[in-house]
């Protein structure tokens, strides 16, 4: 079983390559004093964590979480019909729809954000949670639609027809046939949507005004206080990992 051993070693190396930077991050977050030549910190402590979980940073965490959850939910509701139409190839010229859909991804987010700010100022949406959600949707919706459209097609349509012919009313059909059939892809789309919103920097900064969002709050600390930045980075990672775990579960046992 030479092959498996080689595979195992390679796999281990690969995992280490991914895990090491994270490990450094963890050490950094708990290092109260870590002077240059030393391999390990001189003083360990909770200063970084305490700062990260207090005041503005904590508020930023909850705002970011709220925005990411709401944005994802709205994107799924809005993206579903669009994904369905595209996935079932009902458009004569899907290329145009795809181009329009991808436009916000091709333009730098800060540029989109700056343009939105101007309009949001006029509409009184700047510095509101709904404003930030709207701005995030610009970036999140294309991802959600592109992922979700692969769930729709002849197989789902065939199952839905079976549902209609088996006496299922529209809502029953959606709940018992359509939703379970697309659940794994839906979960993947939700996961991606959440991550895109969670890590939005440009549009949050542009539209959010003074409202703290986690990526916005984190960045200045990278220069001024790496320990707090590291602690915030760990905080930043937590919901992403939780979302990944939830997605993996939803994909395995569809509802």
């Amino acid at each position, binding site marked *: 079983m030479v092959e498996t051993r080689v595979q195992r070693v390679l796999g281990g190396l690969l995992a280490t390559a991914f895990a090491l930077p994270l490990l450094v991050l963890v050490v950094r977050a708990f290092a109260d004093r870590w002077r240059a030549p030393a391999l390990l910190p001189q003083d360990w402590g909770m200063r970084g964590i305490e700062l990260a979980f207090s005041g503005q940073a904590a508020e930023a965490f909850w705002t970011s979480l709220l925005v990411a959850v709401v944005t994802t939910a709205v994107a799924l509701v809005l993206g579903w019909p669009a994904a369905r139409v595209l996935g079932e190839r009902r458009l004569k010229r899907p290329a145009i729809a795809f181009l329009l859909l991808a436009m916000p991804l091709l333009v730098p987010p800060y540029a989109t954000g700056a343009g939105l700010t101007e309009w949001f100022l006029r509409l009184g949406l700047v510095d509101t949670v709904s404003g930030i959600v709207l701005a995030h949707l610009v970036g999140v919706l294309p991802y959600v639609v592109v992922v979700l459209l692969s769930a729709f097609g002849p197989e789902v349509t065939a199952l839905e027809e079976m549902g209609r*012919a*088996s006496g*299922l009313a529209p809502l*029953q059909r959606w709940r018992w046939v359509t939703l379970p059939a697309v659940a794994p892809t839906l979960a993947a789309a939700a996961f991606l949507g959440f991550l895109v919103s969670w890590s939005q920097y440009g549009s949050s900064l542009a539209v959010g005004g003074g409202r703290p969002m986690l990526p916005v709050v984190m960045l200045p600390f990278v220069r001024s206080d790496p320990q707090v930045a590291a602690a915030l980075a760990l905080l930043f990672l937590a919901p992403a990992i939780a979302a990944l775990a939830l997605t993996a579960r939803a994909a395995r046992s569809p509802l």
Partner: protein
Amino acid sequence: MSPLALEIDAITVSPGGAPVLRGLSLHVAAGTRTALVGPSGAGKTTLLRAVAGLAPLDDGDVRLGERSLRNVPPHRRGVAVVFQEPRLLAHLSVEENVALPLRAAGVGGSERRSRARERLDEVGLGGFSARRSQGLSGGEQQRVALARALCADPDLLLLDEPLAALDPNRREDLRRLIVRLQRERGLTTLVVTHDRAEAAELGERVALVLEGRIVQHGPPKELFERPVSAAVARFFGVANLLRGEVRDGLLEVRGTAVAVPGPDGDATLAIRPEHARVDDDAALRAVVRESVYAGTHVKLVVDCHDLRLELHVPPAGAPAAGREIGVDLPRERLWRLPEDDEIAVSAAAAAPSRGAGRPSA
């Protein structure tokens, strides 16, 4: 509950924009089985979909008993469909799949389970309740689909090529099962197939669809032996068509007078390959071009001058290719097609512009 008749009344259906069914009418008597047969693309599946409410009607009506289904959504029609593919839900167990129509009707858990199990027993899948559909064979999956359709307790059962995906032995089993369950329940049933022999076995009556219309509907034997047109004859395997003018009860076939039924005048006569006989004393002479062993019979292709005929003869003593033989066309086996044969479309068909003329290979 007494069974209901299905009345399809001059429906026009255009699933992709162009009409596939053109003023098609069909009656299936209460509690009987009709097999719908026709070549690929004739509109058989479209007809089933229109009856089930999955394809909208441009014109005409579908009635079940006294009730018009025209504006009734599929899930309220009392119609169950077994599709060509089983269409089972992968996230549910076999039993839950079968119980789906009951769940839709709000039948409670324990009754639902026991009724689903009864249906599974009936289709010979007694121990399969807890299994998932993925592990089942094609035939088993199709039985689950049949059990699900029966579970709905429908007024009308529609089956779309239910045997198409199965190997010959399983096909025979499922065919018997379908016929038995239909008889036991007296279920009004319409079953689609592209295979004429299967149609004869599955239907008490057979309806042939050509180019979006029913061209003939009757007992299987009638379609095989008494086709109303050359197109019907060709679909049911009658390649032997004799055309000409009948005088004094005789038709001249390539220089030989053959006794035929019916009055004098222009006529087209058909005879099935298995009804034509090799008889060395017969006046009609022909040369065997092909002699192909087909298991139950030998298929002969023979030429009388430029007229090509097909004969099915017993394997024992069948002539080899190249031999000259006599061909006997028994008068009582010759069937005279209704006169305007190429456009002979059954009763209600509206404009016979394109008729049933296209032969099916």
